[in-house]
């Protein structure tokens, strides 16, 4: 080998350069980094994509701020915005779920607050209310037959056993809203008393527990389940896409919890995040949302869509936010306990 090295320098140089060239080409293609283009604003959101696209499009159209949207479930979205300072805004997520993390958010008082209903204007500046998403019961009209469903109580009908779509409240925030709604409504204002109902309800679930909220409304719309416990917007969207369903506001009472927009306290693009908040709470955007996207506005000057039941016609229930936040984990644990008990 030493002879080879000694006497064949030219050969070796050629061979080596060939090898180096080959390796370089391979490495070049193998390790070429996927470059990311940094957008002007990064928004993380649990909203359905169809809900977001028109709004983001118009936001970009009006402000010229190029926005990247990351779709995640509420808890993952929360985790993400707290971990990543490059995520500027958390768009969506019920106040009941997010309020307890308000320390991570940046206080911003949008001018639009003046047009908010008082109860939404009153919340902490770290939280800007966005829309109202009441929990509803969604019924597949083709499958329900002559079963009357007007509220929670009707869900205990044995004919619905195993035909109720409900997501794990530990995973889906809309499901947790329903659990809260259920506890307050059936416990007559005392959520702890509501667990009697939950036990019966779980029995009628017959072991069926879905993992995402979309499985609930899609499951009902597609006929996999007869009734589903979901949120108003999803039901409206299904209704708009000509699904043969019906929205039922529980006669025992409906909790109207707003969701919010939250600016990351660590964001380096707060001006753009503020522009986002301003746009989303503007009359124009709120009108668009109520007219086309099946949500209720937090503004006084925007009237609700014809599709949804007027606020006044629904029995509402007030909840103590602190109570809900404080008991969240326990309630979820209780629910799971009950569900487990029901299993053979």
């Amino acid at each position, binding site marked *: 080998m030493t*002879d*080879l090295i*000694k*006497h*064949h*320098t*030219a*050969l070796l140089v*050629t*061979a080596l*350069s*060939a*090898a180096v*060239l*080959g390796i370089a*080409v*391979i490495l070049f*293609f193998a390790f*070429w*980094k*996927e*470059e*990311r*283009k940094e*957008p002007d604003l990064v928004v993380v959101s649990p909203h359905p*994509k169809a809900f*977001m*696209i*028109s709004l*983001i*499009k*118009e936001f*970009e*159209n*009006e402000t*010229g701020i*190029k926005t*990247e*949207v990351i*779709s995640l479930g509420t808890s993952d979205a929360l985790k993400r915005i707290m971990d990543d300072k490059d995520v500027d805004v958390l768009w969506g997520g019920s106040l009941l779920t997010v309020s307890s993390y308000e320390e991570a958010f940046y206080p911003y008082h949008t001018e639009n607050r003046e047009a908010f209903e008082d109860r939404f204007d009153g919340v902490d500046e770290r939280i800007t209310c966005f829309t109202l998403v009441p929990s509803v019961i969604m019924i597949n009209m083709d499958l329900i037959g002559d079963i009357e469903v007007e509220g929670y109580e009707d869900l205990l009908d044995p004919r619905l056993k195993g035909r109720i779509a409900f997501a794990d409240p530990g995973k889906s925030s809309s499901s947790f809203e329903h659990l809260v709604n259920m506890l307050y409504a059936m416990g007559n204002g005392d959520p702890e008393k509501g667990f009697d109902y939950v036990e019966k309800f779980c029995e009628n679930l017959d072991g069926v527990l879905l993992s995402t909220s979309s499985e609930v409304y899609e499951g009902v719309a597609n006929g996999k389940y007869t009734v589903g416990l979901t949120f108003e917007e999803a039901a409206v969207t299904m209704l708009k896409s000509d699904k043969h369903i019906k929205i039922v506001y529980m006669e025992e009472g409906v909790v109207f919890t707003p969701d919010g927009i939250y600016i990351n306290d660590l964001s380096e693009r707060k001006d753009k995040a503020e522009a986002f908040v301003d746009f989303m709470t503007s009359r*124009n955007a709120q*009108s*668009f949302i*109520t*007219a*086309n996207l099946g949500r209720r506005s937090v503004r006084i000057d925007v009237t609700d869509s014809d599709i949804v039941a007027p606020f006044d016609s629904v029995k509402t229930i007030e909840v103590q936010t602190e109570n809900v936040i404080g008991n969240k984990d326990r309630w979820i644990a209780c629910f799971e306990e009950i569900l487990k008990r029901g299993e053979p």
Partner: protein
Amino acid sequence: MNKETVCFRDSIRKTFIGYSIVPVVVTALVLLAITGFAWSHSVTYRNEKENRETSDEISRVMDVWYLMTEDMADTFVENDCIVSRDRIFEILYERCGEFGETGNLVILSPDREVLFTSKETVPYYLTEPAYSDWGILYTAGRAEGRTVTGLSEGDICIGKSIYENGGVKGVIVYIVPEAVISRITATGERYLAVTDENGWIWSGNNKMLSDAYGKIANNFDRETGYLKNDGKLYYLCRTATKCGLTVYTADDMSSNIRVFALLIAVVVMVFAGIVFITYRSTDASSEKYTADIRKIEAAFEAVSNGDLDVRLLTDSSREFNTIGNDFNEMLRSLREQIAENRELMTDVAFAQLKQLESQLNPHFLFNTLDNIRFMAKIDADAADRMIISLSGILRYTIRDTREEVTLREDLNNLQYYLNILQIRFNKRFKYSIDISEELMDCLIPKLLLQPLLENAIKHGFGTKEKLSVVIRGYKITDKLVFVCEDDGAGIPSPRLKEIRETLENDTNDTAHYGLYNIHRRIRLMYKGDYGIDIDSREGEGTLVRILLPCRVKKG
């Protein structure tokens, strides 16, 4: 590389490799590089061409629509906003007839009332209150009369507010017929997307460039160049047209790169094979081609170590064969030369000794001195001549150490000898010398002729009373011949035979030094068929003949 002298075989091998593998490898690498370059160039060129053609066509079409929209707006302003349906359709068909699709031209009043539509229906996003300041209406409303492009719910719209006397009189919205753009984009051979300014895809031939929201995927949202997406390499070309639409075209290079990498791998492997085989084969061939060189080297080594008996057998090529033969020939003649030189030296020394011995033959000396003593009593003159002659002989013998002398010099000396013999034998001895004067400057070995006389005296008298000797010298062609003939007793044939045999041999173990020495000296001094021959008949006489090359003293 250090300065050490390299082995011939290795340099031959290096040359083989240097002139075979290296050019092949270099050529192949260059070709590979050229191929790679040409390929990537052709990909980028064709991509850019398609992108340019697409964006040019889209620009052209959009320009037509822009002009139509502006024409329409101008017509409205000119006619105080009172324009007949027919006139509107006239403008619309005149401008857009070539596309086969007229699209939907909608004219709205400032409070979003539909004044005109070229189709039966008006899209909800122009009529519903929620959209009154949304999408194209938002953009057109804030464009201050400029013609603008905007996406509304997936449709590309061209919008323009009609201003008259500083007030807004209405809005023209032209919903571009998607089929016209689709016809342009659908023919694309590569991934193609047409987006608005914010990257929302409006038309394209695939979902590849889109993200989950219908926007251009982040990885593709960049300027023209190479990029990596999902582990694959793409070449992306991007053109932003004047009308607010951006055209993206992307080529997936991954499969081509895999083929190219495979090509490189194969080439490298083939090279490795070639290098291995060549390395082995050059080992053998350089061994073969330099075998004779090594034989020559060994032969020279042996010669320089003193072994002159080596033989060089080289037969790999005509040249080496000649070298081998010449070497062997040279060695052979060298060996001969050395042997001859050695012999010559000993012979010369020996001859000189014998010359002295013969010249100062004690018998001759005693006889001469005895004669001088005797002559001194009876003939003082004769004694005196004898003494003079004897001293002349002695002087000639001693004085010159030259090997060759002229015939004249040797004859002078012979004359002294003859004088002594004449006095000594008086009338019993007769001689005659017949040598042409022109031969006198010829060179002959010293003391050539005296031994002939000695020999004649020795064998000639025998029982005879008288002896006559004739010495003749002449030239035949380029040869000098001396003949010494006597009429003496002759030599008996067995003895003659013995003498002849002695002359043929290289060694002499007989007592015939005189003739033998002459013969040997001639043989050694002159190459060729020279020397002595002798003939004798008992009772009749003896003839000795010397054959020499005729050489004349120079200068």
